[in-house]
């Protein structure tokens, strides 16, 4: 009996990447994150403590929600929104003023989210009607927005003892109260982007604008929709930020930007648009939020985190570029 026919009829060898399905990024992120956790735990066994979990979870909350907004812009082909710090501070200021007026937390949230959406609509209007590059527009609106905010206020702080103040300091099921909305937002957005027409269209526009237009999708409407939705997430992140940050000034959110962009790229959401899984944000944000805490346990200064974040960002951008070159057009 010859073996030849059997060899001829065997299915072609499946590439390793294909066998992983779309979960290669998740496995890679989980592995790196686990390695970091284990290394820190071996060096300092008290790393595995509830205090550490709280510290990391608090850091994740604001960055995670901002990353969802940034991810929507990226996957829709808008590249990145550099105006998030200004949008966050503006919405945070509204949250502070509303809480100072004695409004209940749900109304404070609504006010901040609407402000964020209005900020996103302003960006979209300039991009769509002036036909300008989103990166340049958001860079400019961030400068203008922060400068205008400097004229309006120097410091803002939610009132001690207010509902929003307690929200930023309360734990639910052993984790910060502000962490749970972040989890919910990432899980639900990941589901909506896969399972709804709007989500699929957003991804389609980012993947191939010409094809999307040919299918009758309004690119202008999509751009407005994505920037307003992303702005809404910035507005919600502002509530989390204002609740936890204590007194803040217009430049207090500038340090968040790098972390947010790094989280989006590490999650595999392509800056070129059309590709990405929002659930991966949980892993990338968790990993990035663990780094500074680990560094402190290793006895390194927390400000050295910028070096690690910068290097990680370069690696992530390189991987993103590699993926973009390899992906079928």
């Amino acid at each position, binding site marked *: 009996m010859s073996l030849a026919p059997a060899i001829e009829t065997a299915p072609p060898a499946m590439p390793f990447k294909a066998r992983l399905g779309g979960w290669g990024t998740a496995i890679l992120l989980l592995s790196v994150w686990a390695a970091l956790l284990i290394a820190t735990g071996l060096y*300092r066994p*008290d790393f595995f*403590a509830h*205090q*550490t979990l*709280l*510290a990391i979870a*608090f*850091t994740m909350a604001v960055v995670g929600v901002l990353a969802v907004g940034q991810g929507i812009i990226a996957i829709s082909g808008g590249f990145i929104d550099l105006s998030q710090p200004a949008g966050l501070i503006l919405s945070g200021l509204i949250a502070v003023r509303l809480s100072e007026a004695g409004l209940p937390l749900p109304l404070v949230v609504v006010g901040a989210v609407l402000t964020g959406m209005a900020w996103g609509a302003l960006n979209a209007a300039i991009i769509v009607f002036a036909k300008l590059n989103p990166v340049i527009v958001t860079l400019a609106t961030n400068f203008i927005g922060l400068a205008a905010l*400097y004229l309006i206020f*120097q*410091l803002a*702080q939610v*009132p*001690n003892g207010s509902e929003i103040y307690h929200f*930023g*300091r309360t*734990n639910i099921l052993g984790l*910060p109260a502000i962490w749970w909305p972040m989890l919910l937002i990432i899980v639900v957005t990941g589901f909506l982007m896969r399972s709804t027409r709007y989500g699929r269209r957003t991804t389609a526009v980012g993947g191939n604008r010409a094809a999307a237009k040919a299918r009758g999708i309004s690119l202008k409407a999509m751009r407005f929709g994505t920037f307003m939705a992303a702005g809404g997430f910035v507005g919600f992140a502002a509530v989390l*930020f204002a609740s*936890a*940050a*204590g*007194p*803040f*000034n*217009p*430049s*207090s*959110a500038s*340090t968040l930007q790098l972390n947010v962009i790094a989280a989006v790229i590490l999650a595999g959401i392509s800056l070129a648009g059309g590709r990405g899984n929002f659930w991966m944000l949980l892993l990338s944000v968790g990993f990035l939020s663990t780094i*500074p*805490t680990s*560094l*402190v*346990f290793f006895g390194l*200064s*927390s*400000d050295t985190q910028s070096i690690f974040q910068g290097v990680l960002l370069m690696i992530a951008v390189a991987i993103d570029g590699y993926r973009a070159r390899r992906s079928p057009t």
Partner: protein
Amino acid sequence: MFETRNTRALAIVALAVPALLGLTSLATAQDKFKLGMLVGGNTCCEWMKAQGDVARALAEKEGWDYVELSNNNDPAVALKNAQIMVQEGAKAVIQFNGQPSSNPAISAVMKAAGIPIVTYDIADPGMYFVGIDNLAAGIAGGEQLGMIIKDKWNCAPDLVISSEGAGAGIVNEWRTGGMRTGVKNICPDIPAEKFVSFEGSGDAAVALQPARDLLAANPNAVKMAVVGINDGGVLGLINAAEQLGRADQVIGWGQDGAFITGDNVNPHLAGSVFYFLEGYAVYAIRDVIKPIAEGKDVPLKADAGDPASKVQPCPVSAEQAKAVPDMAERVTQLLAAPAGTTAYDLFCPNKG
């Protein structure tokens, strides 16, 4: 012919009158004293803007021209602003430069132009020094906190945490180092390893995450004293402790008094050291600028130890600070007070 001559005469008169008026007003403008103000421009702190507001109001009271520029907390901008002040014809300049690396160059520009310059809080050999002795203010605050540590923890804290603001350079070293020295003056036996620090940038919101990490890395510390470059940096750690459920384990003492007045004072901020930074222009104008405007010779005193005008630090507990109005009200009262009255005179509850 006659008409032509008349027309020429009229034209000459018509041109001469405004020209003469212009020359007169130019002469008046040149005679008028012009004060230049370079505000710090760091968005961390309300007082930076208030310093300009007070200087402007006092200059207007004196009948001087006033021009103000912001250094944007950037040494290159500060130098450029100094050059603009020369072009603007300022007769004297006041600056707060939180990035003092450009001070020698600014000093040289002003010296070449023959313009006297006052610098707040950060000394330079070519500038009149007006301000606080930051080291002395640090020590004063540290000693107050040391007394609390002694009373509450019998001089045996688990940690003395310093919230640094390295961007402020030598001022950070003076204030936070001074506070550590002050604590040690009261409790000399605290071991060196109990003193730890983190970079909080003097901003409560920015300090929050590194403060949380530091607390997480010291899970067994339950008696923690916090010092810092300013109230904001100290508050960053207190807020972090609240989030980790350890607020009752920390006591903070700040510098600058930014968060120790008003309705929103954190109960774990035990006190601060007021400099009443918003009112520095009173000292500068009273002791340096006005005598110069009056043509007097004011000797250059550039050393913080022997300043042109010394601002006194005012350490206050949170309880005492309740009697001190907030900054906006202080500015209002300061500008309504007789010339030369300082904010320390008006508001310090602990006048030595």
